[in-house]
């Protein structure tokens, strides 16, 4: 297990390094932020001075070297716009996004798996077919459009839920969260649902496909031959087998949920990292963009690592073969 972990960690580090190069070069290519940041009436000397102050006059490789050196010391630069460390600004926004993503994840799993298993057990019933049809909608309708429709129905027409913002928050362990207050919860439902819909459809389809496959296995028939109740067969024999691929996918998707909650956050004016990223791109706030992308990479890599560990806990065959490795 330890050898395996070390090997996986090594792979993760390579991924992070490669991403650092790509991100830095990519952002460099967008354009010169000084053109946007500085007062248009400044003189050429003032522009040059600003560029020098921000270190933008140096060659690319030198800027990259400084960036890496500072990053290794935990410093990802100071925001051109806010004048504070970029990481600090992002981390302030992180809890809001995390909260949104986690609630969306819980929603998509707790609704998606039961629906998927149902559809898999009775693929030709009306219920099973409707679930699949619904999942196709969730899959193919654009996320922002789903979000606006949710606002239109639940906020505008019915007036049940607020259309945007985070609502009242309480502080738990120094982190502000919404889901513990009634008002915050109300604000959370629509964006979380919007973010969850796509993943839910994914989980439904995955759970259904796996259920159908597992149902055909001899061990399910054998479980019936042992006289087990169908409840036990579904909840223990089938569910435990389909959880293996579902957990893998969910883990991978959690990363992308955190990273790309951008659309949902923009539609619902949710003050998270995604909204920050859009604002920073508009202002070419290079340190914030780079810091955001690096943080995203870090999150996704970490989640992948955790998923691999959970996976080995779920499937005894993986666990044991890794011990030998």
């Amino acid at each position, binding site marked *: 297990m330890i050898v395996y972990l070390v090997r996986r960690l090594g792979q993760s580090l390579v991924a992070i390094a490669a991403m650092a190069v790509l991100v830095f070069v990519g952002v460099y290519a967008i354009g010169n932020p000084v053109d946007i940041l500085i007062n248009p009436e400044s003189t050429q000397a003032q522009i040059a001075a600003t560029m020098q102050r921000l270190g933008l006059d140096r060659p690319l490789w030198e800027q990259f070297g400084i960036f890496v050196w500072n990053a290794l010391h935990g410093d990802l630069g100071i925001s051109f716009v806010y004048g504070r460390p970029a990481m600090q600004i992002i981390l302030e926004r992180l809890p809001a996004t995390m909260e949104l993503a986690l609630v969306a994840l819980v929603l998509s799993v707790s609704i998606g798996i039961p629906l998927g298993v149902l559809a898999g057990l009775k693929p030709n019933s009306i219920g099973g077919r409707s679930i699949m049809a619904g999942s196709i909608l969730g899959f193919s309708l654009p996320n922002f459009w789903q979000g606006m429709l949710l606002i239109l129905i639940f906020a505008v027409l019915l007036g049940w839920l607020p259309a945007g913002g985070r609502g009242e928050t309480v502080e738990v362990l120094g982190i502000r969260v919404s889901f513990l207050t009634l008002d915050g919860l109300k604000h959370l439902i629509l964006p979380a649902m919007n973010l969850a819909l796509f993943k839910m459809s994914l989980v439904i389809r995955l759970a259904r496909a796996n259920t159908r496959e597992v149902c055909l296995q*001899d*061990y399910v028939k*054998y*479980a019936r031959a042992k*006289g*087990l109740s169908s409840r036990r067969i579904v909840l*223990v024999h089938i569910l435990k*087998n389909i959880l293996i691929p579902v957990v893998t996918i969910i883990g991978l998707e959690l990363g992308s949920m955190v990273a790309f909650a951008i659309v949902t956050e923009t539609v619902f004016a949710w003050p998270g990292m995604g909204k920050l990223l859009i604002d920073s791109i508009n202002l070419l706030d290079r340190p914030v963009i780079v810091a955001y992308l690096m943080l995203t990479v870090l999150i996704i890599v970490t989640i992948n690592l955790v998923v691999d560990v959970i996976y080995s806990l779920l499937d005894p*065959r993986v666990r044991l073969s890794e011990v030998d490795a």
Partner: protein
Amino acid sequence: MTLLQVEDLATHFFTRDGVAKAVDGVSFSLDRGEILGLVGESGSGKSVTGFSLLGLVDPPGRIVSGKIVFDGEDLVKGGEPMMRTLRGKRIAMIFQDPMMTLNPVLRIDTQMVETVLAHERISRKSALERCREALARVGIASPDERLKSYPHQFSGGMRQRVAIAIALLHEPDLIIADEPTTALDVTIQAQILSEVQKLCADTGLAMIWITHDLAVVSGLADQLAVMYAGKIIETGETGRVIEAPLHPYTKGLIASVPQGQKHGALLAQIPGTTPSLLNLPEGCSFRPRCPRADAACQEEPPLGALLPGRAARCFHPHLDERREALAS
């Protein structure tokens, strides 16, 4: 004393291409402590017969008619609720491939204890005790350790022993074994066979042994029923059927078992292949492959008692050789 009486059982599969009569009018009976060998090629309906007895036929298949009288009660009439209380409790089943029948992600103790608890309200501890005994009975060393293992840590033979141990948990009256030794090495096969024989003799449990391997059943079964295209075409006491088969198909089947031929000599075989169940020939379904077939075989032959305790579904059974043998 009759334990199981199957009358005119028919299990059909309603597929898009038509109705496949996988089991079509099968009748047999089984006494307590008796071993019946159900023999046939792939697709002859022998496995479906076994699954029908437990109500385990998956859609689009279902039992369309017939009776399965087990210990005085008709299981077809009793339906799923009655079958569920019997499954694993009074009728147990052992499957063909031990690699596939144990759930790969559940520990052996989980899979054994749940079988006990499915039918009896006892504590987990006493259930575990019963599992330990069952494992010891089928010759598994250090059962405590084995109970905590996962299926993939066992060899094929060990897994089949575990499956047999699970079948024995409730001391059933009948075990249906669907080719349980086909996936095993010959040496392991011999071990399992001798253990099963001993269990039947010791506990008086009856068994239906489904197989395509005549060599396996010839030493094990008391009675033999040979199936072809969904029908039983010959029945009788094992030794006598093997020695002097009546039906040309049974004769062909026995002749195709290789036994000490010279190197390079051709092995005997039955010409042609098993017909598709969706497109059976008129009359006797073995007719196109039969060396004795004539115009009379366009009609369906009945399963006639040709000798005491012997029956075959054929107009031209191999009786003549017997007469010649008797005359000389």
